[in-house]
């Protein structure tokens, strides 16, 4: 359980994070979203105890991060942005060092290091220097460093940045797997990733929280009106007549003109109306040939953009 109460972080007169409050329950996978400079990393750094807040209170599993920093830090495994590693150590040495820093008992240390190395798929490179590893493996080593010591909470700052698609899928699967036994907070720029992995999203903009909800609820919150994308061949430009024929249509916007002479339109209608049948028949009557028709779904990206734009206005 993580509780953040009225936390503010100021750098001189610049406010990085302002009066943010949220709580995270055990077993949740939380995505921290926001544009660059929104305060995501500052929030993560405060949670991990790397920096201190100017005011407010953070408790990790009941331990206040300022009053009981050691106990609070023991609950957390942190994977920093940019994957900093000791390049003169091998994978095994690095994970062992992390275990030592986290006071893992000497008797069980070796076994726990091995367990984490196997869990993160590092067995085949355990004796290689971390400087000689690919970016994907480095990310795994950093993850192993965070995992060792059996922390209840994992904080992952941009865990998939700089990886190729295969590595991204592997890391995502690993995070999903870890999510079964850990509380996870991750920040990411890839919104599809967050909607796939996380069961709750915190959107931060300009140091303030603009939304905390499940990805589905956020998408519904900014649900577009009933929209259809249609690609048509309409040489006589008769689509202008359609609005009069189908009363439910509120708006028709040209999205793009294609090279083959077809045009893509966005047709907006009232909610709870399925336009597709009417569009199909009326377009045929007007001699407009439909090449493609699809419903426009709202994505987390739409929700994110709308919430961020709302905050910027």
């Amino acid at each position, binding site marked *: 359980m993580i509780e953040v109460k009225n936390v503010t972080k100021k750098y001189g007169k610049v406010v990085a994070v302002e009066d943010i409050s949220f709580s995270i329950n055990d077993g949740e996978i939380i995505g921290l979203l926001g544009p660059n400079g929104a305060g995501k990393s500052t929030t993560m750094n405060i949670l991990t105890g790397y920096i201190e807040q100017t005011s407010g209170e953070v408790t990790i599993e009941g331990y206040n991060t300022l009053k009981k920093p*050691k106990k609070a830090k023991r609950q957390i495994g942190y994977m920093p942005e940019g994957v900093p590693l000791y390049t*003169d150590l091998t994978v095994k040495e690095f994970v062992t060092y992390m275990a030592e820093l986290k006071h893992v008992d000497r008797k069980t240390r070796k076994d726990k290091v091995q367990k984490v190395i196997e869990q993160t798929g590092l067995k085949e490179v355990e004796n290689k220097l971390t400087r000689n590893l690919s970016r994907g493996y480095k990310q795994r080593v950093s993850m192993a460093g965070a995992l060792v010591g059996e922390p209840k909470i994992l904080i992952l700052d941009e865990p998939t940045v700089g990886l190729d698609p295969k590595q991204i899928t592997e890391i995502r699967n690993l995070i999903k797997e870890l999510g079964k036994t850990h509380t996870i907070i991750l920040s990411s720029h890839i919104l599809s990733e967050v909607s796939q992995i996380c069961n709750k999203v915190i959107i931060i903009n300009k140091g303030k929280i603009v939304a905390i909800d499940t990805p589905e609820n956020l998408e519904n919150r900014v649900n577009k009106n009933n929209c259809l994308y249609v690609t048509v061949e309409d040489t006589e430009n008769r689509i202008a007549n359609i609005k009069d024929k189908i009363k439910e249509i509120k708006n028709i916007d040209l999205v793009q003109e294609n090279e083959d002479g077809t045009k893509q339109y966005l047709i907006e209608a009232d909610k709870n109306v399925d336009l597709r049948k009417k569009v199909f028949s009326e377009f045929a009557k007007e001699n407009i040939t439909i090449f493609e028709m699809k419903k426009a779904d709202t994505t987390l990206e739409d929700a994110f953009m709308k919430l961020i734009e709302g905050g910027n206005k």
Partner: protein
Amino acid sequence: MWAIVKKEFKSYFLSPVGYVFIGLFLVMFSIFFYTDVFYYQSTNFEYIFYSGATILTFITPILTMRTLAEERKSGTEQLLLTSPISITKIVLGKFISATLIVVITELCTFMYFGILSFFGEPHLTTALVTLLGFLLLAMSYISFGLLASSITENQIVAGVITIGFFILTWFLPNFSNIFTDFSLINLFTKFPSGQIDIADTVTFVTFTIMCILLTIIVMQRRKSVR
């Protein structure tokens, strides 16, 4: 804390730093040994340490300049500061590991004592007092080097600050007698004659503690302004 001591000590020998420091010191020490013994016909082990102190003044930054600056620059500082280890233990761990390198260097110099024992009768107690004084001087230097390394993320800048400060304190007494006690290298001068001067010892120890405390404060303070 011992995890840090162990890792840092190992790092000195995984990189050329440890070898360069010990090697450079012993090569230069050997040259002074040669001139003292063969040119001045002296079998005084401890007098070579006057030159040893000069060498130390210039090579201590090799040991200290990267300790904290490099952690900050590479971002590994985040791993340390988010672990359940206190800043005090981090600083002390790094201080102890650097001091251990000096201890090894001192042990290596003991072979010269052996050589002199073969040809003459060097005084063991005086030699041990000299080594104690040299260690105290090295600890003061290392603690200041750590402080310099904590205030910048550029290890070259840290090295320049360290050498600059040592040279400044070395030459300050030339300008006024008031500064005599501020010169760390001057505080060492009584040890090779076999005297353990309480005032000098206390100054060395106090200076070391002060620099370590300042390093801890600098790192602690950065947590709130970082």
